[in-house]
């Protein structure tokens, strides 16, 4: 249970930024 919590929390912390990086790259590529 504890590991699951830490895993989820870590993803919540890191994934938005990672997803954002991909989205920004996609938007830039689409823009170009």
């Amino acid at each position, binding site marked *: *249970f*504890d590991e699951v*919590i*830490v895993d*989820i*929390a*870590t993803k*919540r*912390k890191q994934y*938005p*930024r990672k997803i954002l990086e991909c989205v920004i790259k996609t938007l830039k590529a689409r823009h170009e």
Partner: protein
Amino acid sequence: MSVDPMTYEAQFFGFTPQTCMLRIYIAFQDYLFEVMQAVEQVILKKLEGIPDCDISPVQIRKCTEKFLCFMKGHFDNLFGKMEQLFLQLILRIPPNILLPEDKCQETNPYSEEEFQLLQKEIKELQEKYKTELYTKQALLAELEEQKVVEAKLKQTLTLFDELENVARDHGTSDFRESLVSFVQNSRKLQNIRDSVEKESKKLKIS
């Protein structure tokens, strides 16, 4: 009692506060046991050094267990209180506090519906932009076409102008009019010729 998984705290600390407290509890408890064990070892050594000592190791073990049991009780009670304070005051994100990585949730909250609308609008704008680009190409293509047509037409007009100029170069101001007057004059000439011929016939006859 529902367990508060404290996921938001775990997001900040990288561990769950409960695990942290468990880690501290186990460490403290281990030390308590270790020190008690060391105390017992020291006492047994001391007793070995006392001649005719009637205290047996079993008795000492009983004393150790009694003292440890007492200490453990207090230890758990005190640790429980400390843990509560830790979880309330130290390893806790106050409810009114947002972590930096979540700032955007407050600066520009966006619901799923709004987000879908936004994406729909972007799609429409992209289509519109494409249409405008096609329009631009069509307009530019027509402008190119117009240039060609205009050049052709001007070329034709130039041709006509050159014709005029040719005529003018040969003494006639306006070529067309001169041709018209030429036709009229030649028609007069024909009439004169006809009348001359008629007269000469009359003369022959008489």
